[in-house]
């Protein structure tokens, strides 16, 4: 076994170290010292493994032993490089904004309750989006038949919307004063100077529920 000595000052691995290095690199599974040794014709590889582990310590790659088997892996502090996230800014849809508002004003609230307040069926995906955004979370189950999941806003929600607490949300009276409670039809009619006809929301029977806003 020839030892390649350093050209210049670099530490140069000897042939056994190189062989172990290449073997572990090319292996599809972690290998025990014994398996490496067998692969390399019976050489004693423990010293080489220790050398390699020391050499790679602090590099972008490291040699680790797990349960007696060795493998190379990306340094843990660089694991974020393996799965990069690319962020895409997307605006919340109208439906999702409504659901978020209902959760914020009425929390904790079940999906059925959200639907009855909106007067429109709410797609499962809408709540998923809000949970992905980190603004809504599941807080438990309501102790009624079917034990439906109930949702509430998160601290991130308050942060994102610049609110100290949910009490900072404007109340119904303030909304009315701001004209935000005017029926959509009227607002539209006023805007378009067309009396009467506007598109009703999809659910004609939804109007009934808003009474029980006891939250």
């Amino acid at each position, binding site marked *: 076994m020839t030892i390649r000595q350093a050209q210049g000052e670099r530490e140069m691995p000897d042939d056994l170290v190189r062989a172990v290095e*290449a073997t572990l*690199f*090319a*292996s*599809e*599974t972690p290998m025990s010292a014994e398996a490496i040794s067998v692969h390399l014709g019976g050489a004693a590889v423990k010293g080489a493994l220790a050398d390699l582990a020391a050499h790679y310590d602090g590099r972008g790659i490291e040699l680790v032993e797990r349960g007696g088997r060795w*493998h*190379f*892996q*990306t340094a843990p502090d660089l694991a974020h*490089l*393996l*799965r*990069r*996230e*690319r*962020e*895409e*800014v*997307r*605006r*919340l849809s*109208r439906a*999702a*904004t*409504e659901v*978020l*508002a*209902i959760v*914020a*004003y009425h929390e904790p609230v079940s999906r059925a309750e959200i639907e009855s*307040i*909106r*007067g429109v069926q709410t797609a499962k995906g809408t709540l998923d*989006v809000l949970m*992905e*955004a980190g*603004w809504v979370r599941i807080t438990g189950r309501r102790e009624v038949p079917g034990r439906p999941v109930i949702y509430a806003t998160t601290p991130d929600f308050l942060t*994102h*919307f*610049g*609110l100290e607490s949910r009490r900072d*949300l*404007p109340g*119904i009276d303030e*909304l009315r004063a*701001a004209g*935000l*409670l*005017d*029926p*959509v039809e009227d607002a539209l009619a006023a805007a378009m100077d067309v009396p009467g006809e506007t598109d009703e*929301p999809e659910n004609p029977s*939804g*109007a*009934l*529920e*808003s*009474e029980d806003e006891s939250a």
Partner: protein
Amino acid sequence: MLQHGVTMSEDGLIDSPAVTFNGDDWEIGGAATEDAALYLELDGWEGPLDLLLDLARRQKVDLRKISILGLVDQYLTYIEQAEALRLELAADYLVMAAWLAYLKSALLLPRDEQADPSPEELALRLQLRLQRLAAMRDASGRLLGRDRLGRDTWQRGAPEGLRIDRKNLWQCDWFALVQAYGQVKARTQPVVHMVRDRMVMTLDSALNRVSAMLGVNLDWMELRDFLPPHAEPKLRRSALASSFVAALELARLGKAELSQEQTFGPLMLRGIKA
């Protein structure tokens, strides 16, 4: 043996597009234009040029110094042997044999000034082609002899892989949130249906108006004359409907008479003295 009926390049090598054979005196294994026929390997040679190259290399001299005449003899001998053994020769070997026989005779004959291209040029052309094939054959050998990935070198056995996950950064602002809630509330409020500013004349006011006017005038009057004179069209329609109902009511109570001489004609109204 010279076959002018055969389409071939002047050096007898098969060019693309495929050679077509007119002569039917050649026994060809399979259709002449099939790749399979052209691929019939003769003891491992791929076509006549390959065989020629192999024969040339047996001369163990630089291809640039090869004896074309010697090569031709070797090739023809080889083909004769194959025929003697009743080997089925692929057509292109025979085409080459014919062409080489022609080349040989041309080279041996006294130089014919008219020949163009000259046999020397044809020989040179063959030599150049052999050199090129030899060059590529050597190159392919050296290429295959390189350190090849998966044979001599290996990439990492179990790479973690790089993944780019798309993450949505959702945006929504305070106003949109509050506005959305306002709209939900507005949309779903139990609708106290207020009919705003609808231009109507109620039945009561029509009754009052019509009976008051009947008391003043006892002549027949058209119903339309009971309507407020300067009303908007919408109010007029409402007033007409209400006044009609009022007239029917007054007639029922015996306070008025109604007369209409023809369908859709003017509806006349007259008070009755009690």
